[in-house]
């Protein structure tokens, strides 16, 4: 068995035994399962109100929820990926790095005849495999719950879209997991190492989008798309922070995948997410052995 496979299997085994990531994984899968139901409830409630308003003669506009695509019910999942999934991935990553630090196993591993890059790549493969399982389970739950709500199995096209969304989710989560691993590897104090990836997560998932959302809102739950600003302060700020708002790009790309946007897949958003993930994974793999030994600068 190759070093990559040995380390990846070890990573999977150790993560399975760790309670904190388990809790986050369970919460994420549970919320994804629940999200379709929330989507259905939203449509049911709004349509009920619409019918009442229509009966009262207060509107002549058509119900915006009429004939929504089945994958509309998966839109909430995008929010849960950004809010809970990325946090879960960062927690998995930082726990992975801190586990080795607590076990003081770095010196044991580094005195084996295995290349350091293979050890680190194996770790990322293990985390990636775990995330793939989580995403696959959540996708299956989404498929089943949407099929139940719409009273018909999702067609091939929609199933492919759901799979595409799962793949995009996996790439985003892998990036956040790598961010967590880097925090665990590069920061000496354990509490700071735990905190730093979460601060980065909060900045990426909340602060940057806040700076840019006002200019280019992403309509996930509202079926009526907002008109983006093309000038002004928010537009200028969005121009600078836009490329860094990875989660906003994820929302944009997810919306296009789930809805089948007429404009096609937003390539720029896909590229930003891919660069984010690939860059952070590469940063993990090229980490020097001294960092693995607790960041000591021997």
């Amino acid at each position: 068995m190759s070093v990559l496979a040995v380390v990846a299997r070890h990573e999977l085994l150790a993560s399975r035994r760790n309670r904190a990531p388990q809790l986050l994984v369970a919460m994420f899968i549970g919320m994804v399962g629940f999200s379709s139901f929330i989507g259905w409830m939203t449509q049911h409630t709004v349509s009920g109100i619409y019918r009442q308003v229509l009966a009262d003669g207060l509107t002549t506009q058509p119900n915006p929820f009429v004939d929504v695509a089945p994958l509309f019910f998966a839109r909430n999942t995008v929010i849960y990926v950004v809010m809970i999934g990325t946090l879960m991935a960062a927690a998995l990553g930082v726990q992975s790095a801190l586990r080795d630090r607590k076990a003081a196993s770095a010196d044991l591993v580094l005195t084996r005849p295995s290349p350091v890059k293979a050890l680190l790549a194996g770790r990322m493969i293990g985390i990636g495999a775990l995330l793939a399982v989580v995403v696959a389970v959540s996708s299956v739950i989404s498929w089943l719950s949407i099929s139940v709500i719409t009273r018909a199995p999702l067609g091939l096209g929609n199933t492919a879209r759901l799979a595409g969304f799962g793949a995009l989710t996996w790439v985003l989560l892998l990036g956040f997991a790598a961010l967590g691993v880097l925090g665990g590897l590069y920061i000496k104090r354990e509490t700071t190492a735990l905190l730093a990836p979460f601060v980065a997560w909060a900045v990426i998932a909340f602060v940057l989008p806040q700076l840019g959302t006002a200019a280019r809102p992403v309509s996930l739950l509202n079926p009526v798309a907002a008109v983006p600003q093309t000038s002004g302060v928010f537009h200028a700020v969005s121009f600078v922070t836009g490329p860094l708002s990875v989660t906003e790009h994820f929302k944009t790309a997810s919306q296009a995948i789930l809805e089948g946007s007429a404009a096609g897949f937003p390539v720029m958003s896909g590229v930003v997410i891919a660069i984010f993930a690939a860059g952070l994974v590469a940063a993990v793999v090229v980490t020097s052995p001294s960092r693995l030994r607790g960041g000591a600068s021997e």
Partner: protein
Amino acid sequence: MTSLAISTHGLTHRYGPTLALHSLSLEVAAGEIFGLLGHNGAGKTTTVALLTTLLRPTGGTATVAGHDIVADSRGVRSAIGYLPESVQFYDELTLMENLRFFAKLSGIGKPDSRIGEVLAFLDFEGHDHERLGTFSKGMRQRVGIAQAILHRPAVLFLDEPTSGLDPEGVRTLRETVVRLNAEWGTTIFMNTHLLAEVTRTCSSIGILRHGELVHQDSLSATLGAYPTEQALEAAYFETAAIETAAFETGA
């Protein structure tokens, strides 16, 4: 001619401006139990870290089991076992799961039978499926020895192996080291600051002071010159005192 398990020439290491190891030249013959004595901060752990390829020297050369520690670090790592001073292992994994991981990293294809042999050698059977989080310090130390000898290394490095052990644990570890050397022919390089440990276990001794080797000889020759433990201790402190005086006067 006796083959050398470890050979260093002018081995030097600096941590930034601090000189941790100064031109260490020593030879350890294959099949020996070598004890490197020294106070805390003398450079013992740095020496082991260099010889196990965890650190790259800033000067000098060294070979372990015939492999250069810089040019052939992978060869060195294939030939050595290492037990650091404080190792915890993965508490959430069982003994077998921990040992399987290290065995596979050492290139042992089907590790279970080898693990069984090693645990039998260490008289540590019956704990296979217990999680390490429940193990005492002494038990962990035996797991540490087990992971270090799974691949039957030619040279075993032990860094302060008796640190934190109770008398029973110290005795067990001492017996294990002697048996490993006698039955498997493993060369053992042991760091310690305990004179008693060295005199009871080792066949040759080195004393490190302020990063410099101030004494190296066989145990018999050392004890010939200093026949009692008290005499050796006095010599140790005398050496240290001379070195300290020289260090302080800049001689």
